[in-house]
């Protein structure tokens, strides 16, 4: 067998693999965007018909805000939480040994007083150094200062200190929309067995938020942030809605998620040894409930909105994606027994498989595909016009689906976009699938190199002050 024959056979198999791989991905993407869009429209229609669960007798919720060196944004984040349109909740800020003035700023801004509060450690976490409280605000506010132990450890401390049966975890640089608590608790009211609910995380770059209300919305000025807006709608919003239909969500963003405290405690809380503690907890909840035969569901609330800052610098974005990928790898590796295991039902068969093939391995597969094309070009075994046509089809297809998801999301929540913003979105969606995606594939592929050294790393990205009025 000559080298050329070998290449031919190799490329044939590679071609078959990629056809199957892309058919699978395209089908999934199409299905996700279609289901996601129709769900968003149904949601809008339901809201228009006033089919809401408007409650005064709310389920009490503890909001846990883990903070590490968040002096720039922490005050505005707490203010946004105090403005929420909900009656019964508490705010617990856990300062994970910040080196900046995070605690001092919170103490002085909200005039908190030190208390000798005993905290029952139902989940293992680092010891608290001091606890501060105030009862002079709309809801009780607690600040716990503890030794540095990572985000997961800070969340565990917050769970231990929380008073209510459900808790919300969120990032200190995020802002919750005024009605987000009411919306995120709704799945719990709808179904008894809901143990976790994911909120919709949206980039707030370019949005003006006033007392939890979006008063003005436009595409971010920075192109990188713009592309992430489109990516969030296509990859996160649509895909999560589809997985929600299958009760197969294995990711709830750490920026905004609701959990049933008792189940989380029973499952062992957040794993402080992983970087992707948010995904790990959700996978662990699936595993715990399935193994203990506890009826459960993990839901996704499309209209419970959390506005978060997306990185506007490429370096920050790479850092974030690297961290996410390591977290994904750790979670999937830790719960590898779920893979195609009948015991875990659709989670093992569909969700795990999807995340393995199209999330965890995708950067390797994509980079492998690009490398294969380069090799094929050099051995003259590639049909260049077909390759260009194929790439164009891929770009157009992905762009159309990205735009569909983006416009559906914008339209269903009655945000008004200017013609300039729409044109910007159309232009950038092609750039996002053509360049950013491959760039991120490379970043993710290299993420696992030396990840063990970064276990307790908070994955800092540069913060700017949130314009919350």
């Amino acid at each position, binding site marked *: 067998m000559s080298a050329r024959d070998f290449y031919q056979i190799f490329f044939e198999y590679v071609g078959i693999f990629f056809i199957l791989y892309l058919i699978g991905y395209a089908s999934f993407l199409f299905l996700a965007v279609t289901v996601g869009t129709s769900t968003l429209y149904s949601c809008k229609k339901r809201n228009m018909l006033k089919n809401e669960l408007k*409650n005064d007798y709310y389920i009490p919720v503890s909001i846990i805000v883990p903070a590490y060196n968040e002096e720039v944004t922490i005050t505005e984040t707490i203010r946004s939480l105090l403005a929420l349109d909900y009656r019964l909740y508490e705010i617990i800020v856990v300062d994970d040994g910040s080196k900046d003035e995070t605690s001092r700023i919170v103490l002085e801004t909200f005039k908190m*007083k030190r208390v*000798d509060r005993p905290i029952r450690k139902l989940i293992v976490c680092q010891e608290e150094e001091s606890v501060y*409280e*105030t009862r002079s605000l709309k809801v009780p506010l607690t600040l716990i200062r503890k030794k540095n132990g990572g985000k997961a450890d800070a969340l565990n401390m917050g769970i231990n200190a929380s008073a209510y049966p459900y808790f919300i975890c969120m990032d200190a640089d995020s802002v919750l929309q005024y009605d987000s608590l009411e919306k995120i608790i709704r799945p719990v009211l709808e*179904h008894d067995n809901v143990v976790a609910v994911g909120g919709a995380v949206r980039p707030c770059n370019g949005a003006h938020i006033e007392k939890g209300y979006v008063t003005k919305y436009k595409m971010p000025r920075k192109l990188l942030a713009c592309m992430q807006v489109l990516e969030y709608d296509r990859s996160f919003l649509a895909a999560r809605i589809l997985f929600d239909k299958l009760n197969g969500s294995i990711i709830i963003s750490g920026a905004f998620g609701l959990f049933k405290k008792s189940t989380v405690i029973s499952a062992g809380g957040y794993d402080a040894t992983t970087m992707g503690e948010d995904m790990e907890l959700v996978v662990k909840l699936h595993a715990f409930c399935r193994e203990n035969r506890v009826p459960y569901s993990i839901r996704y609330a499309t209209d419970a909105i959390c506005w978060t800052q997306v990185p506007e610098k490429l370096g920050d974005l790479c850092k974030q994606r690297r961290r996410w990928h390591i977290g994904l790898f750790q979670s999937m590796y830790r719960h590898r027994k779920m893979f195609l295991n009948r015991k875990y039902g659709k989670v093992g068969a569909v969700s795990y498989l999807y995340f393995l093939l199209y999330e965890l391995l995708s950067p390797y597969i994509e980079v492998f595909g690009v490398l294969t094309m380069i090799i094929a070009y050099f051995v003259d075994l590639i049909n260049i016009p077909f390759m260009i046509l194929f790439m164009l089809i891929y770009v157009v297809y992905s762009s159309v689906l990205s735009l569909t998801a983006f416009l559906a999301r914008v339209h269903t929540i009655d945000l008004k976009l200017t013609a300039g913003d729409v044109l910007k979105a159309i232009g950038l969606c092609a750039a996002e699938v053509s360049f950013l995606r491959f760039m991120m594939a490379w970043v993710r592929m290299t993420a696992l190199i030396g990840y063990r050294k970064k276990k307790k790393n908070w994955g800092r990205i540069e913060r700017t002050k949130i314009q919350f009025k």
Partner: protein
Amino acid sequence: MQERGMFRVNIFGGYNKEDVNNYIQILENDMEAIKIKNNMENMELKSEFQKLQEENKMLIEKLGQCRQQEDEEQLKVKEGREIPQDALDELEYLQQENKRLKELLKNSKTEETNDLEEKLDMQEQMKQEIQILQDNKKRYEEEYKAIVKVLEDAKLSARSIEEETKKRADEIIANAQKEAELFREKLKFQIDKELEDKGIRLMAAKYKIESYCNYIKKENLYCRVNAFSALYAFGHPLYIAKAVHIQDEREEFLNEKILTEGLMSFDGDHSMLMSSLWDEMGGFSDRTQLAVINYIRFQSGSYGAEMLQIASDTLRGKEVRLAAMRYFGKYYYYPAQAFLLELLDNCTQEDWEYAVVSASALGNYHDPKSTEALKRALYSSNWYIRRNAAESLIAHHPPFKELTDIINGPDRYAREILMYQLESEELKEKGR
């Protein structure tokens, strides 16, 4: 006499006729009396005057006789040139007599004339008075006539007013009768219409209620919640109890908080609704019982005995019993205290939730027995019991010296939780 205030005022503005007539009569009587008196005096004066005139005449005649006699004497003297002494003496006597008579006459004439003049003056005055009286009479007669005229006018006015009024009253009565007739017709029509509408509405309501009850059987949560909302708006307790029963029989989940809040939004009589639901309580599942108990807890404090019965019924579900126990944390019910104390003191490790809720509820029972039990509970091995006991103990507002045995005691956990609750209470006070 001339004051007009002496007359009673007539209703139509003039003087009372009877008063005026009486007064005029009095005036006329007075006038007549004065006239008679005047005439009598006049007559007396005239007769006296005549008598004086006669005396005067007689004296003049006598004086004439004396003069004639004197003349005759003088003539005799002239004729005889010799006058006897006797005749001279007599002449002298006669002259003196004459002089005296003259003076007498003069005097008598003057006195009588003065009297006469005085009497004439009096007569003149009387005449003037009579004239004044006559003028007054004339004036009063004119006034009387005016008053009579006013009275007559008033009478006429009154009569015309009376006639007008009667006419108007007749018209008004006629109109009122007409309007009443129309109103009666309208009312009858309205009542008929309302009855018809009510009948239709009743039929529609019945149909709607049946439809809503069918919607409650649906799987869709929003459909069920909206159907319940519509039923709450109807305000009929029996239908709500029926709907709750239908929902309860279904397998579809309805969060007890949604049910509780929905029941609280009921538009009718809550006491009737509570009673209806309580009657059905035995047939409800634990979840629905929980929702109903929570609803009653928010609505009424008069279910103490019933709640105690549920709380102490060991055959019932744990959540239901705990919900019933929470009722005593909101409403003081003396018979429940012993039960709560018993649970707090003698609860097993498996049933720690009862002790937790008891500790919480006893915060509402401020007496030494409860305080002592809560102090004992601070040393419990269960964290939640300690926490709730500390919170309830602080709610009793005990003097600080009563807590010193715990604060200075050997149990760190009891001390810590109590100190924290004290600090927390202080913060709450500041917050208020």
